[in-house]
C-alpha cells in the first residue's frame, strides 16, 4: 500500500541524478571552451579531488555541515509552503549569537550552538510573524532582514571589544577572536566544536564532529516532518492553509513556528561554521554566500531532509573539486555547473513523468500483466512534483 511513497522518493532521486549528470557534462564542455588543453585533467580533478585524500574528504565534511543546515532550513520552509530566502541573515545572526556565547559569556561550544540556534530562530520569527499577522510576503521580509541582520551584527561586534581579534593578541580588528589562539584557549578552552580524534584520523584541522551534528539534526527534522503530529500539521499548512484552518489547525501559529524553526536551523549552521575554530567572522558589508547556497542544496534534494544530507555532501564535494580547478580555471566555474544542475532540475517535471512511466512499465512486466495498473502515470508524476 505504501509503496507509492517510495516511488516518489525514487523518482525524485533519479531525476536529481540525471540533472547532475547532465550538469556535469555541461561543465566539461565549459572547461573545453575556456581552456581545452586542461579540460580532461581539470574535469578529473573536479570529480575526484573530494576523495583523493583524507584531507580533502575532511574539507568536504567541514563545508557540508553549514551547507546542510542552511539547506535544511530552506527545505523545511519549502515543505511548509514558505520560501525562506532569509537563511543568510539567520545564518549570520546565528553565527554572531554563537560567538557571543563562547566569547562574551565564556560558554562551552554546545551552549554556543544553542545560542546560535536562538539567534537564527529570532530572525526567522520576524518574517513568520509578519506573514501570519500582517500578511506581508515572507520573501520580502526575509530580504530586508538579511541586510538588517548583517548590519546589526557588524554594529554589535564593533561595540563589543572583547569579540574582536585584537582583544586576544592579534593585531587586527576586522574579524572576531581566533578561537584557537593560545590566549583565547586559556580563556575558554571549550569554545570550539570537539574534534573527537577525527582530525588525527583524517589528518586535517578542518575535521570536527560538526557534520555529524548536522546529519543528526537532519534526521530529527525528517522524523518530525514524517512521523509526528506536529509535522503532519506543518505539512498540511504548507500544502493547504485553508484546509488546515478548517481542520482546527492554527495555521498562523504554524507559519510562525515553521519560519522560526527554519531560522533556527540556519542559525545552527552559522554556529557550526564559526565554532569550528577554523574561520573567523569578518566584518564585511556583503551578505554571506553560505545562506544562499542552501537554496540549491534544498532544491536538489526536493526538500527532503534525508535527501538534503546527500545533496549538501554532493555540493560540498563538487566545490572542493572546483577549488582544484585552480589555477588554470576560475573556481567560479563550479558555481556555473551547480546553477546548471539546478536549472536542469527544472526539467524534472518532464523527467519525472518519463521515469514514472518506465518504472511502472517495468513493474507491470514484473507483476505478470493482468493485475490492474495503478492510476495514470501523469498524475503520479504531477503529485510527485507538487509534493516537494
Amino acid at each position, binding site marked *: 500500500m505504501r509503496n507509492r511513497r517510495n516511488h516518489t522518493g525514487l523518482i525524485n532521486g533519479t531525476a536529481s541524478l540525471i540533472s547532475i549528470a547532465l550538469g556535469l557534462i555541461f561543465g566539461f564542455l565549459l572547461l573545453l571552451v575556456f581552456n581545452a588543453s586542461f579540460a580532461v585533467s581539470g574535469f578529473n580533478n573536479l570529480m575526484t579531488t573530494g576523495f583523493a585524500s583524507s584531507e580533502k574528504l575532511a574539507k568536504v565534511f567541514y563545508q557540508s555541515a553549514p551547507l546542510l543546515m542552511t539547506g535544511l532550513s530552506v527545505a523545511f520552509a519549502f515543505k511548509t509552503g514558505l520560501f525562506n530566502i532569509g537563511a543568510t541573515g539567520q545564518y549570520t545572526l546565528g553565527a554572531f549569537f554563537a560567538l557571543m556565547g563562547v566569547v562574551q559569556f565564556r560558554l562551552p561550544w554546545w551552549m554556543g550552538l544553542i545560542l546560535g540556534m536562538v539567534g537564527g530562530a529570532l530572525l526567522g520569527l520576524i518574517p513568520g510573524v509578519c506573514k501570519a499577522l500582517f500578511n506581508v510576503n515572507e520573501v520580502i521580509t526575509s530580504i530586508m532582514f538579511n541586510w538588517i541582520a548583517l548590519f546589526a551584527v557588524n554594529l554589535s561586534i564593533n561595540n563589543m571589544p572583547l569579540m574582536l581579534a585584537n582583544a586576544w593578541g592579534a593585531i587586527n580588528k576586522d574579524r572576531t577572536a581566533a578561537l584557537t589562539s593560545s590566549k583565547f584557549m586559556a580563556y575558554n578552552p571549550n569554545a570550539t566544536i570537539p574534534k573527537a580524534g577525527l582530525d588525527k584520523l583524517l589528518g586535517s584541522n578542518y575535521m570536527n564532529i560538526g557534520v555529524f551534528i548536522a546529519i543528526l539534526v537532519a534526521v530529527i527534522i525528517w522524523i518530525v516532518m514524517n*512521523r509526528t*503530529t506536529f509535522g503532519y500539521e506543518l505539512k*498540511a499548512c504548507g500544502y493547504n492553509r485553508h484546509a488546515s484552518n*478548517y481542520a482546527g489547525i492554527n495555521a498562523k501559529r504554524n507559519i510562525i513556528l515553521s519560519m522560526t524553526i527554519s531560522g533556527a536551523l540556519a542559525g545552527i549552521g552559522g554556529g557550526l561554521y564559526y565554532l569550528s575554530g577554523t574561520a573567523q567572522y569578518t566584518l564585511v558589508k556583503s551578505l554571506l554566500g553560505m545562506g544562499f547556497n542552501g537554496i540549491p542544496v534544498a532544491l536538489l534534494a526536493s526538500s527532503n531532509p534525508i535527501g538534503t544530507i546527500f545533496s549538501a555532501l554532493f555540493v560540498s564535494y563538487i566545490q572542493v573539486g572546483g577549488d582544484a580547478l585552480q589555477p588554470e580555471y576560475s573556481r567560479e566555474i563550479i558555481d556555473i555547473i551547480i546553477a546548471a544542475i539546478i536549472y536542469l532540475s527544472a526539467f524534472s517535471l518532464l523527467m519525472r513523468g518519463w521515469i514514472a512511466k518506465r518504472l511502472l512499465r517495468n513493474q507491470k512486466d514484473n507483476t505478470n500483466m493482468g493485475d490492474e495498473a495503478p492510476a*495514470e*502515470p501523469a498524475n503520479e508524476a504531477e503529485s510527485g512534483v*507538487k509534493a516537494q
Partner: protein
Amino acid sequence: MSEYVIEMLNITKKFPGIIANDDITLQLKKGEIHALLGENGAGKSTLMSVLFGLYQPEAGEIKKDGEIVKINDPNDANRLNIGMVHQHFKLVEIFSVLDNIILGVEQTKNGFLQKKDARRKVMELSEKYGLQVDPDALIEDIGVGMQQRVEILKMLFRDNDILIFDEPTAVLTPQEIDELMQIMRNFAREGKSILFITHKLNEIMAVADRVTVLRKGKCIGTLDVADTDVDQLAEMMVGRKVNFSVDKAPSKPGEPALTVRNLMVGDKRHTKKKVNNVSFCVHKGEIVGIAGIDGNGQSELVYALTGLTKPESGVVYIGEHDITHNSIRERNDLGLSHIPEDRHKYGLVLDYTLAENLILKNYYTEEFQRHGFLRFDEMYRYSEELIRRFDIRSGQGSATVTRSMSGGNQQKAIVARELSLQPEVLIAVQPTRGLDVGAIEYIHKQIVAARDDRKAVLLVSLELDEVMSLSDRILVMYEGEIVAEVQGSSATAHELGLYMSGANRQAPMEVEA
C-alpha cells in the same frame, strides 16, 4: 447547404487514463435549442471545449455549415461565430465589466485601446436583450447573476450565433432561470443556435427542442424533446431507473443542538452586513435547510458558525455551550462537523493521501497519536474501515493521493470523515455540488441517516430541489437576513423563489426561532 450549422462527427478525446469523449457525434440545427445531458464526468464539458477550441480531439471532425473546419483555439471558434458561457465563469475579477467583454477582441488605434464604440455596442445589446449590466463595475463587486449576464454579453458582443451554455442555471434562482429560458428562446427565434448543458431534466423539457444524452464518454442517443419524458431521459443518462425523491420518515425534533442568536457578520469592503441579525435553532433529529441565492450570506453564516471567521456580534451555542469565542478545534471537540462548500479549498489537503485526509479532524486524539508521534497503523486501519463503509473508490486505496481522485469520491471521503466523528451538529454545505445522481442519492441517504441517529443537521444548498427534498424545516436567506421559515413538507419552489429573490418576506416575528 447543410441542414446543420454545426456537426461534430465521431469525436474522440482522451485524457491520461480516461476516454472523455468516445466516438461522439452531435449535430446542431440552425435556430434550435439542443440540450446536452449526462451525469458528472460524462464528457459534456469536454465535448464543448473541443468545439470551442480549448481541446484538440484525437479523432473526428467538425463541420460548420457542411464544411470541415479546424478549430485550434478560441479565436478560430470566434471566427466561426461560436461562443461559450463556461461552467466556471471565465472573468477577470479586477477588470471592469467592459474590459472583460472586450478582452480578446479589443479595438485599437495606433496601439491604444478604443473603448467608446465597444461601450455603445454593449449598452445596445444589454438594452435589446434585457441583460442589465454596469459596464464600469468591477467583476469582484457584482453578483453571480450579473456575472452570467456579462458572460452572455461576451458572446453577443462577438456576434456569435452558435451559443454554448455549460450549466448556466446552476447558480440562478427559479425566477432568474425563467428569465434565462426566455432569453434563450429569443435567441433561437432570431436564428441563433444554442447548445445547452444541464443536469436538470425539467429545464430540458421546458426549453429544448432536441436532447443528446452522454454516458461515460459515449453518445447514448439524440431525441426530440417532444417525444420523450423525464423518466426516460433519466434512465438513458444513468443506465437505470432513478428514484428522485428522498425516502425519509417525519422528523421528531428533540432539544436544541445548535442555537444562533442575533448573529452579525461584517464585510471588509462594504458597510452592509453580510449576515444581518440572524437567529435560529436546529434541534436534535432535525434537518434544517437554508435556501437562498448564492452570495446572500450563507457562506459567511457558515464560516461564522464553524469559526473560520469572527462574527461582529451575536451568540452561538452548541447544546448548552456558548461557543461564540471558541476556536475551530474547540468547536470540533464539542461535536461540530462541517462539510465545506469548497472541497478543494477547505475540505481536503489534496497532496495528502486518502488515509491522511481521513484523520484530518482527529489526528491529535489518543487514537492516532502517542507522545506526539502519529500511529500509522491505526491511521491505516481507520482509513480502510471508512473506505469500506462509505465505498470510497480510488486507485490505490488508503495510499492514494487525493488530488488524483474523482470529485465524487473526494466528496465521499469528506462525508465519511465528518460523519464518523459522531458529531452532535452537522453543517453540510452544498454536499452534492457537482456530483452525479448516484453519488447524490448516496450522500442524501447518509444525511438522513445521521438525522435519524438524533444528530442535528444544518443543510445549506443552492439547489432548491435538494433543500426541499431533505429538509424538515427551511429557512430562506436574502441579503444576509432570514426572511422566511417554512415547513419542508409544505414548501413549493414558487413560494421559496419569491422569498429568495426578495420579492416577498415574512414578518420578522414569525422568523424568530
